């Protein structure tokens, strides 16, 4: 294949190397193209496509690789297949928090699960090879669009009306007939259908919907913007995704805001559907064993810190507003959003005890120990007093000095040493969850656990995602390109009455529609229906129905 410009023997137009059809008159000027690669010459109007023309240098080879539709489709296929593997077992972020992943996969899914984990499929969508695949897809998108889009759009812009007779024959729809002198009338009828008319002596080009040809390149551009946008997430400051844990009644600083904002959890609410609300759902709810949640809600007060710029100062909180965060109704501030994510009521808030004597008789009133900030002494009446001598919120063991050692400050496994005194004698006992041990000998009284109350904490997701505008814009451009490419048809009709009446037509898709538009006009003006080269297996009855 020579890389020389090609001069058309018929009209004298000079075409770039690799052109198949003269860009001016449409005559075949280079039948030496690779017919395996280019199945339909008209697809890119016979223009010179780099990847199909040059194949010498390494760059040419790389270019050929990424512009190849075969390669592009293979990449898409590999991405789709590997994506499906990722749904075989849950991804790591769906398994319970705090569980050792290897153990989880092995326990739940056996050897296959272990293999799944070992191969890294538990984090498939953020694995390096998956990202590389997406990157290759992006390269393929860019290369293929430049490779084919530019020559095609260039050749479509410089169209001339005058085409060589062989160009007419080349079209799937064509017709050659005696000239009945109705050419003008056909053109007028076509113009009424929205065709733009261009003529060169008695050669005519009627065209509409050229925008359709831009569709694929617009949608590819959109996808490239989207992929670019999703990479921005890795730049600092673009993306925040954190959990904010707020116990009922507490005010906490919102992370990532440099101490500027605070949020208070006034109330956390879980509502259930009422089985007897008199609604259409009553029956369903009564038949089901489970309660159905109707609402998760955190009533918050949002504060701004007026002292944030003063280093080391106490926060000076100014109330901004009250809001109820619910699922589907996040709270927005600055570039952030707070979402209702989940809740936690596993943290104990208080424990209630009562005192019993050796006969099991209850003595005095019950008393409640606030686990976050316990009182030291409880007067339960009847002359009895209970003093708390030691307390560990998360009990591990008793050290040599008899003090209680706590693992964490969180009240998950509280233990107490209570001193019961009736004014005369005192007794000591160690109380743990589910366990009570006498410290002094032969205790008369015992402290019994009655009930506990838990904290209600809301878990909010704090989110900032500055990549959203890029991703959304990219996808909207993609959708627009897709709609343009799909819903508009590019139709061209060439007519000349130089030697009889010749007409041929081309469309990038929907030949049925084109015929449906063309045939009535031809019929009206006394011409035959246009010949369709591909309609070999024509069922006439269906076809005539069609044209109604």
């Amino acid at each position, binding site marked *: 294949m020579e890389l020389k410009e090609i001069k058309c023997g018929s009209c004298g137009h000079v075409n770039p190397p690799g052109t198949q059809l003269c860009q001016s008159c449409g005559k075949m000027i280079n039948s030496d193209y690779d017919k395996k690669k280019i199945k339909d010459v008209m697809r890119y109007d016979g223009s010179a496509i780099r990847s199909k023309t040059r194949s010498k240098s390494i760059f040419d080879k790389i270019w050929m690789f990424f512009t190849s*539709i075969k390669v592009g489709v293979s990449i898409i296929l590999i991405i789709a297949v590997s*994506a499906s593997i990722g749904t075989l077992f849950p991804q790591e972020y769906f398994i319970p928090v705090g569980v050792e992943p290897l153990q989880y996969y092995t326990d739940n899914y056996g050897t296959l699960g272990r293999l799944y984990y070992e191969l890294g499929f538990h984090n498939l969508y953020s694995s390096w090879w998956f990202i590389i695949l997406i990157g290759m897809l992006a390269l393929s998108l860019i290369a293929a669009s430049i490779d084919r889009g530019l020559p095609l759009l260039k050749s479509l812009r410089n169209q001339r009306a005058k085409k060589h007779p062989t160009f007419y024959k080349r079209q799937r729809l064509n017709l050659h007939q005696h000239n009945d002198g109705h050419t003008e009338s056909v053109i007028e009828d076509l113009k009424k259908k929205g065709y733009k008319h261009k003529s060169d002596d008695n050669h005519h080009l009627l065209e509409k919907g050229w925008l359709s040809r831009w569709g694929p390149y617009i949608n590819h551009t959109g996808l490239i913007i989207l992929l670019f946008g999703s990479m921005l997430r890795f730049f600092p400051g673009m993306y925040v*995704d954190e959990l904010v844990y707020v116990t009922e009644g507490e005010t906490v600083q919102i992370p990532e805001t440099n101490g500027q904002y605070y949020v208070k959890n006034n109330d956390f609410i879980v509502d259930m559907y009422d089985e007897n609300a008199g609604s259409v*759902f009553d029956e369903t709810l009564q038949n089901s064993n489970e309660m159905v949640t109707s609402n998760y809600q955190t009533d918050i007060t949002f504060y701004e810190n007026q002292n944030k710029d003063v280093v080391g100062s106490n926060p000076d909180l100014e109330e901004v507003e009250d809001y109820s965060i619910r699922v589907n109704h996040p709270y927005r501030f600055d570039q952030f959003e707070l979402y209702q994510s989940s809740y936690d009521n596993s943290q104990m808030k208080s424990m209630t005890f009562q005192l019993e004597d050796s006969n099991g008789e209850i003595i005095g009133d019950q008393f409640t120990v606030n686990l976050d900030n316990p009182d030291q002494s409880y007067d339960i009446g009847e002359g009895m007093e209970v003093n708390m001598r030691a307390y560990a919120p998360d009990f591990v063991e008793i050290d040599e000095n008899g003090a209680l050692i706590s693992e964490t400050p969180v009240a998950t496994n509280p233990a107490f040493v209570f001193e019961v005194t009736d004014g005369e004698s005192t007794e000591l006992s160690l109380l743990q969850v589910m366990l009570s041990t006498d410290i002094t000998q032969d205790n008369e009284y015992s402290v019994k656990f009655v009930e506990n109350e838990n904290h209600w904490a809301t878990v909010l997701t704090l989110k900032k995602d500055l990549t959203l505008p890029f991703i959304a814009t990219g996808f909207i451009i993609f959708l627009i390109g897709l709609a343009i490419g799909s819903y508009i048809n590019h139709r061209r009709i060439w007519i000349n009455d130089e030697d009889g009446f010749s007409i041929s037509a081309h469309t990038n898709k929907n030949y*049925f529609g084109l015929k449906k538009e063309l045939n009535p006009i031809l019929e009206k003006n006394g011409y035959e229906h246009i010949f369709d080269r591909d309609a070999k297996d024509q069922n006439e009855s*269906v076809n005539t129905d*069609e044209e109604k």
Partner: protein
Amino acid sequence: MESTMLSISNGLITAAFFILLVALIPLAVSIKSKNKRSEYIAITMIVVAFIMQIGYFILRWIATGHAPVSNMYEFIATFSIMLILGYLITYHYYKSKVLGLFAIPISLLLIAYGSLFSTDVNPLIPSLQSNWLAIHVITVTISYGILSMSAVAGLIYLLKAIPENEKSLRARILELIMAGIVVVLVYIVTTLIMQGAVGYSDEFMYTDQRGETMVADYHLPSLVNYSEAIPVEHVGDEQYEQADHFHTGINLPPVINSQSLNTVIWSIILGFAVYGILRLVLRRRLLAFVKPLASRADLNLMDEIGYRSVIIGFPLFALGGIFFAAIWAQIAWSRFWGWDPKETWAFITFMFYTIFLHLRLNRGYEGEKSAWLAVIGFILILFNLIAINLIVAGLHSYA
């Protein structure tokens, strides 16, 4: 008031089912006869049935206060309605009757299958309480309805193009699709008989993955069961007593939904048994009996419909199944994309149709190749609509 509306709504969709069933007769007649009357009757019936189905949809929406697309039955019903819509749109452009002869039975099969799930109305859990529920799901189902026409046209193409007695892989796969339809039909009939008419019900108590005690109600004899499942009997008020039920003794880990698997195994056994009997009695491939229905189809037209429905359905799917879905996911779950199984399968469906379009536009995949791809696309849609919700646990498991 609301419950009256619900009963009317249910009545409408049932009536529409039978009207569609009957409409197949004039539709079949119209393919052979020159007379336009039977075609007119058939199309009128389909339009009436479709309007009734829309009536079902609207009344159920008013009665419950939310778009009826919130559980398995409602999804599948909506999908089957959109298949009818897809057919009517295609008919408007191409006047193809053969297409209806295949599209309508598929739609009927789907809704029959869907009605085996609970048809009760459900209140919405918090994450579903959004206008995006209606916008997202309705757009997706419309696109599914249109994309399905591509598969229906593809199926007709294959039925006509592939000789019934050919000893080839393609003929065998096509015959397998026929067998698959028999399996689904047998499944529907057995479930209706065992659950409805016979009232077969064996309860088993087992411990699920999260360690919670659950009770599975088997409507078919237990071939496979959960590990350490105990046969029980309900004695009222969440009280159970040990009982004696049939069980083969095969127990599977709680990760696998044994109850669903039991149904699947029964359907396959019974379905292939029925299929085997049919083959023995008929002495020919089932293909041979379905093929005549497609004999009048115009292959070029089927190819064109197959392509055009993808061209129209795919952008709609991208809009509803990806874009609207992402907007809602951002609002409800704080992230627009999270590789949840359902999202991933929507992505796979999306990728599949891009492959379809690129192969068709650039590599000349027309005719039979295109038809096969269209059929695969439909299987993907069904998989994402039904299997993902039932098999894989994820955020979208509302069934």
